[in-house]
């Protein structure tokens, strides 16, 4: 029983990171119609930048904030330089461009940081907490907290503020939103900036547990993508559930069957979902083209 509980907590930690990445993917997709395959690289960039800043003598919070800002700038630049100029291209073209960007970022990261893993200390000192007999890393609680804060913040913005409603209006009906004077291109820029921030934050929070490497973004981005598909690619709630579910399934798969199975789980789940419920577990079928 304790073992299962232990798996569950580990799975939720991992799943929180997947959920954050999926959240950024879905938000960007809803606003721009583009799947940003470079989302995982934002995670790696944020994590690596924070490690470098921390070892250069910055405090942990300062390194965190600077890394988040730097990655937000990268997200914004990406949108201006390669997404916006081809805004009239088909979505598939844009998606392939994001894959190109992700390969480029990974290559640059390899040049800058090399292949060695980097680490950050846990945000709070002290040993694991005992919860119902299972050991919970304090850093895991930080990760879970980040997810909750992000989701709450996003929800409050979208549901309660005028600007959030303008974003939703653009998602619901892009043409009508344009007629109101809402500029989808500015929203697209915002989406990539926020994606950069979210990715970087997730990267910094997970680094004390998993370490940071130049290529960490590939697998995380892929898992986030699977999580988003599980939840129904345009559904924010689905992305969160999809991420958590995927994390938990991976840890149980690795723990109960074989640790070699960990990465296969995501793809097996993806295939099953696509075969049985292509619209996602929560998503509804939509013919809408953004």
């Amino acid at each position, binding site marked *: 029983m304790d073992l299962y509980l232990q798996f569950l907590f580990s799975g939720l930690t991992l799943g929180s990171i997947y959920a954050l990445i999926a959240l950024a993917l879905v938000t960007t997709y809803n606003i721009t119609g583009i799947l940003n395959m470079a989302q995982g690289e934002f995670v790696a960039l944020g994590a690596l930048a924070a490690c470098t800043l921390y070892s250069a003598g910055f405090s942990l919070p300062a390194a965190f904030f600077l890394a988040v800002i730097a990655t937000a700038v990268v997200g914004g630049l990406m949108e201006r330089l390669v997404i916006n100029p081809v805004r009239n291209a088909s979505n598939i073209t844009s998606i392939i461009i994001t894959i190109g960007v992700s390969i480029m970022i990974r290559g640059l990261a390899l040049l800058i940081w090399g292949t060695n893993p980097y680490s950050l200390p846990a945000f709070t000192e002290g040993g694991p907490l005992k919860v119902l007999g299972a050991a919970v890393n304090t850093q895991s609680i930080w990760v879970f907290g980040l997810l909750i804060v992000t989701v709450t913040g996003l929800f409050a913005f979208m549901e309660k503020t005028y600007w959030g409603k303008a974003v939703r209006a653009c998602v619901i009906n892009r043409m009508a939103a344009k007629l109101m*004077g809402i500029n989808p291109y500015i929203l697209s820029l915002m989406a990539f900036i926020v994606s950069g921030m979210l990715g970087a934050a997730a990267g910094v929070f997970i680094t004390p547990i998993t370490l940071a490497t130049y290529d960490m973004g590939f697998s995380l981005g892929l898992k986030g993508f699977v999580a988003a598909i599980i939840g129904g690619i345009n559904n924010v709630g689905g992305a969160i559930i999809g991420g958590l579910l995927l994390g938990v399934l991976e840890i149980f798969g690795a723990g109960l069957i074989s640790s070699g199975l960990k990465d296969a789980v995501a793809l097996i789940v993806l295939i099953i979902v696509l075969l049985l419920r292509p619209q996602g577990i929560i998503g509804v079928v939509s013919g809408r083209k953004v």
Partner: protein
Amino acid sequence: MNILDVNGLKVFHGRAQALRGVTFHAREGEIVAVLGANGAGKSTLLGTLSGIYAAKAGEVYFKGEPIIRQSPGYIVKQGLSLVPEHRQIFNDLTVQDNLLLGAFHRYIKDKGTLSEDMERVLGIFPALRGRERQTAGILSGGLQQMLAIGRGLMARPKLLMLDEPSIGLAPIVVREIMEVLSKLREDGTTIILVEQNAAAALRVADRAIVIERGQVIISGKPSELVNDERVQHAYLGRTGGHAGNVAVAFGY
């Protein structure tokens, strides 16, 4: 004075030419009906005037200023508002949010006056009153159309363009909407009304133009148009003529 001047407007959808040099104008404070069969280019015309489609050639002057190839945001700020075909309201948002978003371009500047404007819209469409917190998507078609017009009015337009507001609505609702348009004209709003329902449109219009295959083929007073053979043809030619009996509907 002309509030809107359109000269030789040409628009392509891909390779297909939707507008082949449209020229017309609207005077301040009048209702101009734009008639024509399906696919004649009416919606393209309105979409181009409001900045959704890019024109290949031609000129558009609104209040004497060129607005061609400007962004929809710029155009709505100048006072030209489009109520698009099929309402296009924000389904998942409340009635109130739909209305408030109609004032998006002046939200920062005019925050204080928005509730006043919303009150005015609810005065024009009393049926929407009490439904401010309802989700727009669950409203009936007629109420959705009123909401779409209300949302357009929240932008405080000098010129309001409506694309087939009567489509799919009961005759009594159509009459109500046409009455509202007459009332808006009295308040000084200029209106361009695109309609399939020619009889209803000609009843309220001061002038009308007929578009066929991307060109204005006739313009004139409603009384002149109802008996024009070419008007009948413009409809009969393509749609089998639900508006073919324009003259009959008028009792001519």
